[in-house]
């Protein structure tokens, strides 16, 4: 094989991966998720959550509130690090701040939905639950270890956490319907997957078009690759149009709504409806199947349109669209590049390497997953296609979860940013604990996948937590003893 041929094959692999990721099932979860993230940022006042994080907040309120803040208020690092610094410097202290830092990349709507859509709901749920439990655990450990340093920290100035805020009822309804749209697009139940009507569009050459696509993007299902369908090609075309009209309509939205804005929204709705319908090309034309999913998406879109035109204020509409567009602009290009790169890398990797290293749920495998997560940096959400590549190459789901938990929390870049805020010693202590907890999470989840059963998994999890609690109790007693009496 010549070098040109080899490069051609890599290019083809990258493009094929990209095309497969822009297919129907990903669009139905990712597009609503971006709009939900935008709505959360624009419509939920930060004060409604942060007022539980003030410096006088009791432990049992501050930690859950920090986790809630992680899942609702923070989607990209642009928000995570400032809010982390704010909670640490002016709020409840290092414990809740670390809980927030750990939980935010795993608990936000985009990460959750994207993991669920691409890898599977089980892994998304495991990632959510274990991040929550362990995030609170790491926060408490950090608070205990640095108890004395914490006590010495001056807390001066106004309390920015005192402000209160509430949500308007139409805004709440709007968020709920957006979530319904997401569920209608992604839930795999009979009600949604059954076909209730079918139309045959007499487009000749549809089967030849499908043949052309398959030859352009050849795929090997046994290696976890996906091909491109006719529907996928139509969707990619629509997406490009949505991107162009969004650029015209949303970039200058603070100057007012234009017809481009409405065109972009209309095209987005059309894209979702196309993705929700089933399509199969054959010699006589294209069969379009109207599934339950199609009607669910249609209903949800109708509800959204009514709320947007009749119930939301001009400011709410504008803020929602701007924030959603900002997320798309910030995350989507990196995601596209990342997915392309993953396709190329997959072509270069041998499944044997992965299988030997992390093919089973061993301690070594889980540590390898964590180590890879710590030393690699990927932009927001790109960790998910990477994890999916590992899965396709034969990685066990346990080490996979260990990797997924460690990667977005830790990278050399984020460690540097965190140490600016809390100091180098605390930052590296945090890194150590994240590594330990991620490996434990992978081991526990992996044993459940291997068929350990609910009971045994619970035993593993609770004994890990018991060891932790005992260590905490012991550390606490020691530090209380060593504290001079007058410092209480």
């Amino acid at each position: 094989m010549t070098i040109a041929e080899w490069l051609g094959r890599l290019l083809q692999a990258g493009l094929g991966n990209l095309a497969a990721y822009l297919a129907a099932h990903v669009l139905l979860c990712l597009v609503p998720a971006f709009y939900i993230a935008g709505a959360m940022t624009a419509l939920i006042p930060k004060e409604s959550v942060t007022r539980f994080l003030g410096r006088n907040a009791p432990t049992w309120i501050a930690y859950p509130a920090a986790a809630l803040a992680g899942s609702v208020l923070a989607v990209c690092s642009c928000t995570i690090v400032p809010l982390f610094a704010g909670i640490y410097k002016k709020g409840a202290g290092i414990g809740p701040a670390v809980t927030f830092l750990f939980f935010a990349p795993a608990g936000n709507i985009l990460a959750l939905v994207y993991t669920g859509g691409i890898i599977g709901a089980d892994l998304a749920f495991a990632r959510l639950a274990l991040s929550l439990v362990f995030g609170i655990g790491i926060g408490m450990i950090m608070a205990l270890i640095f108890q004395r340093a914490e006590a010495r920290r001056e807390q001066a100035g106004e309390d920015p956490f005192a402000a209160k805020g509430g949500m308007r009822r139409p805004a709440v309804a709007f968020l709920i319907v957006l979530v319904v749209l997401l569920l209608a697009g992604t839930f795999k139940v009979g009600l949604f997957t059954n076909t209730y009507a079918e139309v045959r569009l007499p487009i000749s050459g549809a089967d030849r078009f499908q043949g052309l696509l398959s030859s352009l993007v050849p795929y090997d299902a046994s290696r976890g690759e996906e091909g491109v369908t006719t529907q996928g090609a139509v969707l990619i075309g629509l997406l490009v149009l949505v991107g162009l009209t969004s650029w015209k309509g949303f970039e200058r939205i603070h100057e007012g709504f234009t017809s481009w804005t409405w065109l972009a929204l209309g095209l987005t709705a059309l894209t979702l409806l196309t993705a929700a319908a089933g399509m199969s090309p054959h010699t006589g034309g294209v069969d379009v199947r109207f599934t339950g999913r199609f009607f669910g998406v249609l209903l949800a879109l109708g509800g959204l349109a009514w709320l947007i035109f009749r119930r939301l204020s001009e400011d709410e509409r504008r803020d929602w669209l701007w924030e959603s567009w900002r997320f798309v602009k910030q995350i989507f290009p990196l995601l596209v590049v990342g997915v392309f790169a993953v396709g190329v890398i997959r072509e270069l990797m041998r499944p044997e390497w992965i299988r030997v290293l992390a093919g089973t749920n061993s301690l070594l495998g889980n540590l390898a997953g964590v180590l890879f997560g710590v030393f690699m940096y990927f932009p927001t959400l790109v960790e998910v296609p990477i994890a999916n590549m590992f899965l396709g190459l034969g990685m066990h789901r346990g080490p996979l979860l260990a990797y997924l938990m460690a990667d977005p929390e830790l990278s050399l870049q984020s460690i540097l940013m965190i140490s600016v805020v809390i100091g180098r010693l605390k930052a590296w202590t945090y890194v150590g604990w994240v590594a330990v907890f991620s490996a434990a999470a992978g081991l526990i989840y992996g044993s459940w996948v291997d068929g350990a059963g609910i009971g045994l998994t619970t035993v593993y999890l609770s004994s890990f937590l018991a060891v932790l609690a005992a260590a905490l109790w012991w550390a606490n007693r020691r530090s209380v003893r060593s504290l001079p009496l007058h410092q209480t």
Partner: protein
Amino acid sequence: MLVIKILGSGCANCKKLAYLAERAVNHLGLEAEFVKVTDYAEIMKYPILSTPGLVVNEKLVSSGRIPSDAEITTFLTTALETA
């Protein structure tokens, strides 16, 4: 003369806020000095939870979101009245 500070490390929303504030100042025909505060230690001196933040004459008037045109105009006129 107003001193307007934009707090933020240079993310998209900070740039948008700076643009909107400048536009509002021009609309009202005011004179103002704009300062972009990007240093984190400096930003945290204000009671701010998340960027972008808008400071008019050393008073933090909005943070964590982009205020609307009408709000910015109100901030500016109140600052002029109290000055």
